[in-house]
């Protein structure tokens, strides 16, 4: 195994899939010169029919992806940052996601939305810092958000091979992290979470780049005698409820640590199902640490005020004891 960057793991997963399956094509803005770095050099290997730059036309390119998927290709659409899915909203939630159901199961749209950097990267303000997966979850779209290079490679391969539309959110703050990744192609099934660290006192449900922060926090709190279990759903929909409930029933305390908006966010959903299914096991109310319900402000101090971070996690954990 090699220790490689998250971004490299993503790139490798896509590259290998394109080698294995000639139906896999990548479509997006600036994918030939590869502004995001995922498809660097792909054009030389796969040529312009499989590495397709589009004009700046997100609604159009998303529909094109759907049409290509319906008719036999397996497109991977790259969105440079997550806000660009907003222009494409009808094509995502009203077309791609609904077609199978409305056709009584006859249509199949195996398309992957590779959201090449999601979340706040520092100083990009209101329109370049969102984490808009709850909108897609709400519409029933399969959605993954890998937190490590290993998960990124395995989950992207599964997403591409899946016969439904799948959104893959790559947290911008994870792209530069490193981890062990096998050279060969492998899959991590959708819908399988992972206990990233075992503990017995409290479960922290964490997503994306926050998994790393939860793990650091768990380590720090070890010395104060608090044993934190870190659960990473990896796939946000379908959610690995079984593993989640097992953890919650063991610890009896839960914090959902998620970097999307609070109202109707991912953490709201997780909290609700825990209180429905695990109520009698709970020793304290389920707590959420999320973003505030505001656009990300530009100024650094205001920005960190509204984002979930380690300091807030520690504070809320300590409050629960």
């Amino acid at each position: 195994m090699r220790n490689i960057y998250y971004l490299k793991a993503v790139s490798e997963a896509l590259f290998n899939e394109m080698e294995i399956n000639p139906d896999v094509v990548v479509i997006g803005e600036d994918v030939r010169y590869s502004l995001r770095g995922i498809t660097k050099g792909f054009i030389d290997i796969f040529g312009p029919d499989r590495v397709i730059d589009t004009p700046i036309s997100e609604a159009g390119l998303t529909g094109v992806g759907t049409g290509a998927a319906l008719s036999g290709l397996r497109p991977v659409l790259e969105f440079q940052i997550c806000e660009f899915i907003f222009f494409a909203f009808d094509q995502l939630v009203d077309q791609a996601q609904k077609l199978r159901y409305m056709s009584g199961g006859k249509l199949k749209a195996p398309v992957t939305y590779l959201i090449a950097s999601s979340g706040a990267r520092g100083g990009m303000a209101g329109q370049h810092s969102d984490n808009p997966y709850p909108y897609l979850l709400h519409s029933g779209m399969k959605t993954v958000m890998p937190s490590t290079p290993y998960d990124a490679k395995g989950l992207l391969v599964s997403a591409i091979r899946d016969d439904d539309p799948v959104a893959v959110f790559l947290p911008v703050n994870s792209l530069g992290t490193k981890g062990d990744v096998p050279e060969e192609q492998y899959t991590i099934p959708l819908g399988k979470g992972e206990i990233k660290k075992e503990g017995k006192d409290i479960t922290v449900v964490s997503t994306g780049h926050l998994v790393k922060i939860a793990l650091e926090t768990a380590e720090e709190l070890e010395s104060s005698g608090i044993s934190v279990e870190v659960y990473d759903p990896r796939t946000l929909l379908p959610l690995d409820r079984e593993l989640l409930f097992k953890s919650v029933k063991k610890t009896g305390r839960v914090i959902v640590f998620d970097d999307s908006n609070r109202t109707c966010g991912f953490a709201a959903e997780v909290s609700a199902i825990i209180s429905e299914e695990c109520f009698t096991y709970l020793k304290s109310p389920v707590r959420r640490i999320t973003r505030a319900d505001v656009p990300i402000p530009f100024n650094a101090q205001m920005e960190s005020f509204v984002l979930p971070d380690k300091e807030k996690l520690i504070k809320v954990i300590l409050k629960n004891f």
Partner: protein
Amino acid sequence: MTEKITKNLALELYRKMVLCRKFEEKVAELVNKNEIYGTTHEYVGEEAVAVGVCSALRNNDLITSTHRGHGHIISKGGDIRYMFAELLGRVNGCNKGKGGSMHIADPGIGILGANGIVGAGVPIAVGAALTIKIKKMDNVVISFFGDGASNQGVVHEAMNMASIWNLPVIFVCENNQYAVSTSVKYSLKIENISERSKAYGFEGKTIDGMDVLEVYNNTKEIVNKVRSENKPFLLECKTYRYSGHFTAEKILNLNYRTEDEINYYKSKCPILSFSTKILNDGICTKKELDDIDNLVINQIDEAVDFARKSKSPEPSDALKDMYATEYTGIPQKGWI
């Protein structure tokens, strides 16, 4: 166009272009020193467009701007002290440190907002033009957008609506020939984006966007036409950006433009060619231009100094300004 220009106008166009250029050079410096948070999209090379267009406007004319908006804001009369304060995230920045480079808005001087979303400002401009029509005012709206933005669906929708409703809006396409790495030779099958105006039923024109006088004179004429005829217009200015797409592009080594190409356009620098022209025509002296350069440099130093001395907002100010009408309980913060 070979109209004679007055000395005042020449010096003013020159001053504004130098101000745009030096402003961006300072911004890039501060981004590279991490004194400005995040990244910015510099307007270097394209000054003649914003300056030429905005100098032909009245204070109450409106504009929508783009991610590459500093030049538009400055040319429309933005106060660079408050712009720098915004870029440093200070409380007296034009948007209280909430917006930063891509979201500068200043309705007092007709700036309805820069925009981080390519193409999104164009329908907003059309909406403003609708207000003007319904309220029977006589100002106009300018919508700046790029060659890349021209392929965004909402841009087409907006242009068609402007046309069927006879709205006083001028779509100014800043065709700098690239959208990040994507050349117009790839993204368009037509030579001139202005040709599209025909399809919507209004007039369009393509001009040299490196020539500030040409931009100014054309805009003057078009603004008059649009004001009196209540018809939109598509003005395409061919231009070029000297810098990368954003400040840190260099480290990505994308190499989508050749050095020769960049140097060719640098040799057509809008500031240098204009100053050469007005000197040759005897409109002003070298000393007058040097004085302007020095004035601008001082003005920028003072503005940066002003911004640095300004207060930072309280972190919890992040929860303010969300609503025009406040209700308790919203917006929620992220933890309790």
